[in-house]
């Protein structure tokens, strides 16, 4: 969930709750005020009746009107308790009443009303008085007020939502910029994370922290790389000594079968060590972009030459090679392209089986090298990792790492796919 969404959700939720609560309180307060106003009117009317009765000693004439109705009924003395009630108000629309006199009971409109029950004694008679006023107008008023309030709430709601959205988006912009920078961060390139302009302290700090971290990471990485380079370099001399001593050793006298087997194994191990070391050095050099140049390469003839070089191996392993090459020119380092082609082709041979196939297809946009081999798909995300190799592989485990690094440097893509029975490596130019 995005921060903005989350924030908006919480914000809007609390706003709604607060608005609802205030709305209810508001409604209650207004209706309380209006009802008490009506009750005052009822008391005024009651007083008028009392005054009239005390002056005239009989009940006043009762008029039916739209806003209030008064009824007198005889009752047992002392049986009436004074009080306000919610009741029904019969609205006799005058015109309607005149027209449809004959069934006026049906035509009565019921509205909610507020009534006052009180009592008066006229002479010896005790009367119960019911004064009822319609509360419709008051309710209408409440409705209007409530409507306006609801409208205001809605407006507030929308404005809040929009401003939050705009403001927060803008406020968080430096954060998103930083995030993008982080996403493109690459320890191997020399580009530093730039200082984003912001006047928000938190983002400023975040930016500083990220810059500091990236610098540290880069310097650590550089150190590690130079360590690898130095270590590999330092190893060269002892390896050279071992090699030369072995070469000298085999000149001395004759060896038993067992001794010569041991020597052969030593030779193999040393040559493996040499290649591994050279691969490591090469990788560091490629990563440091020390091998870049801008040669003109005719890729088609390059590949053809390479195929001739490998011919004996193809014959020996009984591998059927078919190639479909179209013209393609590159302007980049011959050295790197050679290593790349060599690695990919070597892999295609090494992981093949006798009687297998290799298909090479060169178009203007891609070079596809397919080979038969193990009947399992390789793991796309693992094969390019250093020293990841199949158990039976005789290679250094750096071939594909180097290939990928070269492709990265040359701005090519290198992808693997498996389409039974072919393992396919595609270089996209």
């Amino acid at each position, binding site marked *: 969930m995005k921060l903005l969404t989350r924030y908006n959700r919480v914000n809007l939720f609390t706003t709604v709750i607060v608005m609802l609560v205030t709305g209810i309180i508001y409604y209650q307060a207004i209706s309380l005020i209006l009802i008490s106003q009506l009750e005052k009117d009822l008391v005024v009317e009651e007083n008028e009746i009392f005054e009239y009765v005390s002056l005239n000693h009989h009940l006043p004439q009762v008029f039916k009107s739209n806003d209030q109705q008064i009824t007198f009924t005889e009752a047992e003395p002392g049986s009436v308790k004074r009080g306000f009630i919610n009741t029904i108000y019969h609205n006799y629309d005058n015109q309607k009443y005149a027209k449809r006199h004959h069934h006026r009971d049906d035509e009565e409109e019921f509205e909610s009303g507020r009534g006052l029950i009180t009592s008066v004694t006229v002479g010896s008679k005790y009367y119960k008085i019911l004064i009822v006023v319609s509360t419709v107008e008051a309710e209408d008023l409440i409705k209007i007020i409530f409507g306006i309030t609801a409208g205001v709430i809605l407006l507030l709601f929308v404005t809040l939502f929009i401003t939050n959205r705009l403001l927060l988006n803008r406020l968080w912009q430096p954060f998103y910029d930083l995030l993008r920078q982080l996403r493109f961060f690459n320890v191997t390139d020399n580009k530093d994370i730039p200082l984003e302009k912001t006047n928000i302290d938190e983002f400023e700090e975040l930016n500083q922290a990220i810059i500091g971290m990236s610098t540290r990471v880069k310097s650590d990485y550089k150190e590690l790389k130079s360590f690898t380079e130095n270590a590999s370099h330092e190893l060269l001399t002892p390896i050279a*000594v071992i090699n*030369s001593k072995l070469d000298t050793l085999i000149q001395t006298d004759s060896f038993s079968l067992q001794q010569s087997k041991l020597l052969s194994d030593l030779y193999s191990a040393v040559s493996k060590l040499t290649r591994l070391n050279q691969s490591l050095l090469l990788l560091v050099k490629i990563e440091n972009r020390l091998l870049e140049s801008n040669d003109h390469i005719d890729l088609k003839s390059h590949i053809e030459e390479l195929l001739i070089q490998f011919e004996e191996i193809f014959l020996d392993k009984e591998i059927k090679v078919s190639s479909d090459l179209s013209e393609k020119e590159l302007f980049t380092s011959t050295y790197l392209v050679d290593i790349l082609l060599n690695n990919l082709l070597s892999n295609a041979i090494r992981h093949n089986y006798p009687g297998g196939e290799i298909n090479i297809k060169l178009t203007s946009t891609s070079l596809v090298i397919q080979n038969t081999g193990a009947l399992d798909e390789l793991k796309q995300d693992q094969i390019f990792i250093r020293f990841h190799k199949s158990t039976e592989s005789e290679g250094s485990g750096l071939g594909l790492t180097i290939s990928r690094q070269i492709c990265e440097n040359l701005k090519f893509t290198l992808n693997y796919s498996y389409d039974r029975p072919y393992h396919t490596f595609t270089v996209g130019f």
Partner: protein
Amino acid sequence: MKILIIEDEKGLRESIEEYFTEAGNICETASNYQEAMSKVSLYSYDCILLDITLPGGNGIDILKYLKKNNNTDGVLIISAKNSLDDRLEGLDLGADDYLVKPFHLSELRARVTAIIRRKTFNGSNLLIFNEINIDLLAKAVKVNDQFIKLTRKEYALLLYFLANKGKVVSKNAIAEHLWGDGMDLANNFDFIYSHIKNLRKKLIEAGSNDYIQAAYGMGYKFTSP
């Protein structure tokens, strides 16, 4: 031939010296810059094996000194630095060849032999060993005045063996010589076997002696019977 080995690593220096020392060869060594400078300024050599990183100075400076004084000694740089630039710089400055550590002594020997051959047999491009006669320019091989047809690899192999006469050459060294170290598929020595078998067959069929012998399963030796 007279060779100067300028190399600070004792183990390597001694191995090279031992490998090159035989009847007719004189090997001298220098283990640091000063020693090397004094030797190259006093004596003349057929070939100087020059390490670039030396205590007390840089091998490149020795090379510059040699070229400034129009010294005609052959120079082969042996360096741990395998960068194209270093290689080009060395060759531009007039070195005859550049070999990257680690290397096989047989490879070094083949390179040195080639340099000396170029230097000393000016004009003559014939390499003669008993009944085998090689025209280096035309890359043609005659046995008892009869041409034999060799493939590129067989020819390279023959030259390699001749440069390392009497030495056991390991299969690894042969593989690296024939295919270069870029090709790490050479672990499979069957190729070498078939090349050697073919070369041997062609030489013998043309009436040559059987010089190439397998040495305890780990290499081959070119030797006069």
